[in-house]
């Protein structure tokens, strides 16, 4: 029965094809970031060039820093992600809980010439971003000048957008309440300091529209749902450049963070993941990200390679750096669980 055999043969051939294509899927690299303008920029600057240079498939996923998801993956030994973008506090928390590979000790990253704070036990910083205050230019007779203006409902009435997270929000509440930038984290480490921050937040609670994904603040501002919003500076610059959003940025008291790559513990493609992270901190590669989004490089040697026209939009520009505060990842790793729980219950009341 030649026909039957040919059917059987083709069927088996199909099975074999399916079988070999699965490892091919697993052979690629899965990179996870925060979506929107940031992930597009990272795709153009890091992912695509890396995939091309090494002839490897890079697939993508997005998240908003929900550690429980990562925890479930690591605990079940079923890790679908290889490289994840974190902010300093998410990175430090996950590192403390043993969810990440300790890549900070690798010689490749130690010798990469990163700026202070951009290399920690588990995380390698690739860009500098800032939380800033964005506003509709025509909303107020006088423009807001600093992030703490978000608490000034007298001069700047109306709804304001704030990220649904205690990170950055509590620091700003203390700054607005008169705590010096150098004392913010020591104050926030005390129960009285936490109470003080929440008390300050209470004063604007009814005026806040909460956002969760970085792409939301530009939308909320454009649709007129809020008049000002705390946002990540690159998203606002991107909305201004690509969608003529005409949004203003107040830089004073910016809270600076790093976008950092981490590798989840138990990644199935550890070697390729490390290779990709190392690729991201090559000076010429690292400098290209600033072309696609207004975030500065973390590699010292890359600073000179950044295109001149984007420099004024970067958090690190001298005229933007007044009263800048660096997000303290270690503080959040230690106190994040308790503060998150309190913040979630406070917001739901």
């Amino acid at each position, binding site marked *: 029965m030649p026909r039957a055999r040919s059917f059987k043969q083709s069927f088996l051939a199909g099975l074999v094809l399916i079988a070999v294509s699965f490892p091919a899927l697993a052979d690629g690299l899965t990179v996870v970031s925060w979506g929107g303008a940031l992930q597009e920029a990272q795709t153009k600057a890091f992912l695509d060039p890396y995939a091309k240079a090494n002839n490897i498939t890079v697939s993508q996923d997005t998240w908003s820093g*929900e550690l*429980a*998801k990562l*925890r*479930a993956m*690591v*605990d079940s*030994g079923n890790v679908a992600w290889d490289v994840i973008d974190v902010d300093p506090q998410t990175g430090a928390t996950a590192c*403390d*809980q*043993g969810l990440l590979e300790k890549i900070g000790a690798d010689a490749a990253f130690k010798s990469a010439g990163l700026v202070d704070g951009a290399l920690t036990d588990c995380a390698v910083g690739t860009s500098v971003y800032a939380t800033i205050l964005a506003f509709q230019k025509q909303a107020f007779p006088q423009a807001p000048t600093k992030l703490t203006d978000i608490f000034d409902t007298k001069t700047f009435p109306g*709804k304001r957008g704030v990220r*649904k997270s205690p990170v950055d929000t509590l620091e700003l509440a203390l700054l607005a309440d008169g705590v010096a930038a150098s004392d913010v984290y020591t104050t926030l480490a005390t*129960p009285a300091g936490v109470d003080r921050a929440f008390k300050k937040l209470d004063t604007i609670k009814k005026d806040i*529209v*909460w956002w969760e994904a970085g792409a939301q603040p530009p939308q909320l501002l454009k*649709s*007129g*749902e809020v008049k000002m919003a705390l946002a990540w500076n690159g998203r606002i610059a991107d909305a201004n450049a690509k969608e003529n959003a005409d949004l203003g940025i107040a830089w004073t008291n910016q809270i600076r963070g790093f976008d950092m790559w981490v590798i989840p513990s138990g990644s199935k493609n550890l070697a390729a993941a490390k290779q990709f992270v190392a690729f991201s901190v090559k000076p010429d590669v690292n400098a290209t990200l600033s072309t696609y989004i207004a975030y500065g490089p973390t590699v010292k040697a890359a600073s000179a390679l950044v295109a001149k026209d984007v420099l004024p939009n970067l958090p690190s520009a001298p005229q933007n750096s007044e009263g800048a505060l660096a997000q303290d990842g270690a503080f959040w790793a*230690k106190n994040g*669980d*308790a503060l998150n*729980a*309190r913040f*979630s*219950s*406070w*917001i*739901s*009341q």
Partner: protein
Amino acid sequence: MTLPYGDVGLMMTQNDTPAAKAAAPSVRVVRSSIRSDSHRRAVRAALPAAPLLIFLLVFLVIPIGSIVHTAVSDGEIARALPLTTQALQAWDGDDVPLSAVYMTFGQELEAAGHAGSVRPLSRRVGYELSRGANIILGAQRILSEDFDRADPQAWKAQLIKADPAWGQSGVWSIFKHYNGRYSAFYLRWATGFPVKIEADGRLSQETSYDFRSIYLRTILISLVVTGLTILIGYPVAYVIANASGRTAAVLLFFILLPFWTSLLVRTMSWIVFLQTNGVLNATLAGTGLISEPLPLLYTRLATIIAMIQIQLPFTVLPMISVMRAIPTNQVKAARNLGAGPLRAHATIFLPQAVPGIAAGGLLTFVLCLGFYLTPALVGGPSDQMVSFFIARFTNEDLNWGLASALSVILILGAGLVALPLARHVARHSSDRI
């Protein structure tokens, strides 16, 4: 003409034959055959309902059972530290346990580290002890250092060096208490009892979710929506029930239209309608009624309006079916006897429409209790109902014990409200439907 007991009839005719008489069965055999026969009949009668029963079992009874099971399962501590929990049974709860217990615990923690069960343990302890996760993970870290492993005192010193909490009673009392596989911990948490303690064993002052007020909010929003849908739906149902064929059909079409539109689409339309630069604010500003746009979106008001629109068909349809069965002559007779239009309606029509109102209201109330999507999209953070938190603990915090406990209480609450009312409705409407 069919016999009610076809099989029995058949058996009788068989037994009338001489052959059967010759081999007359004993009484007992006949009895048992009749009994097994009635069994068979009962089974056969139930057969048409079998798909439904199997469906209910697979998709209702078993899932709810497993949710209840998850809500009371609490074995992480005993699983990771069996010997420690056992050794602690002899401890009276004062001060701290003996050094030997420290050694047992330290060795078990190391073993748990190799088995990968430390993180479930640290997360579970973190639910009940302030900074609990850090205390456990810190202990695990310090045990990898060098110290005299034969000396219980050295284990104790090492742990207290990692965190002073190990020299206090709080963490040990938790280990002692959870030596089994089940506990009411999540149920206590979900019903708003304080569950968190400090390292010294006192109740923690950390604010946590106020679940009682969240339940209260859920019930309140559901009651308001139910009341308003009845108020709005009653006249609509009355008009449709008394309208002639074509008008009634057109009106019914409008009632059913939302039924054929996705819930998500309808909720998103409310966002477009209510937002600051949305349809409503633009219209109001255009007519000069307002100078500043009203803040409507992300409020309790928006939540209630959207929920009413979504629930209206559920309330109106049962009302229509009951109202259609009310004879119109009775109201006419009452008018003839001198009652005014209002009095005739209130004394003759309304009492007979009550089963419809109750059925529609009950349906709406129970459905409202479980609302999630609409409040999440058009409400603010303080307008979120229980379902929102169940989803949050399930998907984001991965705290399935608490999510299940919240669900169990929601199911119980809805059942307590629905069952008596449903029986009442069934009793009083059986002669109308």
